């Protein structure tokens, strides 16, 4: 509470007794420390992950980049031969190699950035929707510290060559144990928070957030036990791997992103969700279909045909929750699209929600065998992954942060220009990246399917410009990230705007409005 009073201009009337606005300000203030900690550490890992990403991306079209010795032309694409020829130089820079940097990128953005941001947004949404101040805020902060220790150890282990080489589970078991413990604390806290909510309606966002807090620890524990601690044998490992890999997206990032959009869009516009009935169908059909989707990563693999077919069917069934959500978000925003000019939160969140529809329909189509034959193992899939995790999820997280941070810090964002710069670098950057990888991937896939094409001479040469394009789009995204991290740091240091007091989260002014 104390910090919020700074924003009241001198001479303003004293804060009124517990009104809706004052109660909401108290709830927001109770989230201040843990949520800002999760957001701050999320942005740190976003910057680290962006650095890993840029280096990895450049290495794909310029393998000599950040290598000690230039690679001879004849062995440019045959790293094994190069290793035998230059054992010492590669050992010196082993932690800079593609294999380690790519894993470091994936894990720092998926667990360091996206998951930390999702926990921060989820914690704040739970407090608002349970309509009680945050319970045990220091426990949540402690879980955040533990989570960051786990990530730091895990990334260091990957760079030191101790990756497990299982995609999405590269962290060695000792780091995974720390992460699992930290998340378990959050999950138990979430149950406690839900149990102590004020009586009344459970808003659809709360369903999504609570389900996500419940699903992720179950997924993470099951996958780590079945793959790292007591490994299952043979191709079952691949099933567990992709059951987990896809469910991190479907049962963790998606419900947090969609749930946040279900709160932010109506709240920012000031209009209830178009059809609450549809939102209930969307939630329960997502819960039913999504956990079956992982098998579509293994189309063509040595698995029982029914496993693949069941997962293709479930992937196509995902059209139901996706279209339901798309209709609902579009109809809520309809007639208010002019608000996109005035609200940073709405701009980011609506961009993310639109991309959710597009990327999900693309994903359903990619699960169909005839298209999968072309796109599997090409850059097309990488484009799809960034479409989902960046254009959908990350953009919604940015939007939520633009809404939440001023309410926690008690001051308004300093510069509208920096917000616009962040939005346009992010929007153009991710659009360019998805376009480059999608077109490049299709070209690559069609050529790979033709046995007459020469792999080194033709296919690699033709994909190279698309990879350069991807690196350039990454530079745009990096600019946006640095700008946002700087802007966020100003807010945390209490250097935001104060003149006239912030408009929306000041209870006194809220009361004063007619």
């Amino acid at each position, binding site marked *: 509470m104390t910090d919020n009073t700074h924003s009241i201009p001198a001479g303003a009337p004293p804060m009124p007794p517990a*009104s809706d606005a004052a109660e909401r300000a108290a709830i927001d203030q109770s989230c201040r420390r843990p949520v800002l900690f999760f957001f701050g550490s999320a942005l740190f890992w976003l910057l680290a992950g962006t650095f890993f990403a840029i280096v990895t991306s450049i290495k794909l079209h310029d393998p000599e980049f950040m290598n000690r010795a230039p690679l001879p032309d004849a062995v440019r694409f045959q790293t094994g031969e190069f290793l035998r020829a230059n054992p010492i130089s590669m050992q010196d820079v082993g932690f800079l190699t593609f294999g380690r940097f790519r894993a470091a990128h994936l894990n720092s953005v998926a667990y360091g950035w996206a998951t930390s941001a999702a926990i921060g947004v989820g914690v704040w949404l739970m407090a608002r929707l349970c309509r009680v101040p945050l319970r045990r805020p220091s426990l949540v902060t402690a879980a955040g510290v533990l989570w960051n220790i786990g990530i730091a150890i895990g990334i260091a282990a990957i760079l030191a060559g101790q990756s497990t080489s299982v995609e999405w589970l590269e962290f060695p078991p000792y780091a995974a144990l720390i992460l699992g413990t930290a998340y378990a604390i959050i999950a138990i806290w979430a149950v406690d928070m839900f149990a102590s909510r004020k009586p009344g309606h459970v808003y659809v966002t709360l369903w999504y957030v609570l389900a996500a807090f419940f699903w992720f620890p179950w997924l993470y524990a099951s996958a780590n036990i079945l793959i790292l601690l*007591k490994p299952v044998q043979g191709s079952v490992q691949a099933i567990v791997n992709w059951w987990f890999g896809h469910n991190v997206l479907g049962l963790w990032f998606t419900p947090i992103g969609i749930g946040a959009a279900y709160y932010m869009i109506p709240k920012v516009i000031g209009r209830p969700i178009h059809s609450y009935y549809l939102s209930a169908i969307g939630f329960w059909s997502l819960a039913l279909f999504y956990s079956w989707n992982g098998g579509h990563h293994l189309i063509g693999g040595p698995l029982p045909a029914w496993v693949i077919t069941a997962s293709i069917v479930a992937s196509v069934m995902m059209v139901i929750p996706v279209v339901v959500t798309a209709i609902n978000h579009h109809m809520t925003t309809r007639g208010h699209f002019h608000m996109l000019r005035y609200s940073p939160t709405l701009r980011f969140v609506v961009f993310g929600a639109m991309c959710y529809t597009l990327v999900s329909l693309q994903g359903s189509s990619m699960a169909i065998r005839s298209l999968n034959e072309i796109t599997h193992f090409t850059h097309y899939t990488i484009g799809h992954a960034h479409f989902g995790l960046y254009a959908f999820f990350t953009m919604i997280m940015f939007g939520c942060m633009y809404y939440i941070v001023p309410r926690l810090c008690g001051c308004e964002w300093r510069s509208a220009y920096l917000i616009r710069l962040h939005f346009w670098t992010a929007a153009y950057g991710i659009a360019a990246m998805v376009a480059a990888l999608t077109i490049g991937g299709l070209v690559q896939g069609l050529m790979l399917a033709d046995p007459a094409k020469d792999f080194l001479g033709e296919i690699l040469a033709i994909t190279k410009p698309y990879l350069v394009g991807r690196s350039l789009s990454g530079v745009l995204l990096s600019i946006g990230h640095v700008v946002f991290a700087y802007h966020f740091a100003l807010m945390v240091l209490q250097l935001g705007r104060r003149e006239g007091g912030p*408009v929306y989260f000041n209870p006194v002014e809220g009361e004063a409005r007619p």
Partner: protein
Amino acid sequence: MTAAYIILGISLVAFGAMAVTALVWAARAGQFENFKAGSESIFDSGEPIGEPTDLFPDVDRAKLAAVASRAAKGAARP
């Protein structure tokens, strides 16, 4: 493989049971009864329906009032 069977058992039985429990609880608690009140539960007297709650920091008050009235007109449309 024992671990696999235990986890499979937990997943199928405990997880399914919790999902069913949640759905039954929601139905019994009346969560699916009044959709209109449900969708309006995030608004209150401090942040009522028809008022936007987020703007760029350089948007001035006059513009805010104009946006708010336009949003209110939009909400009033059928």
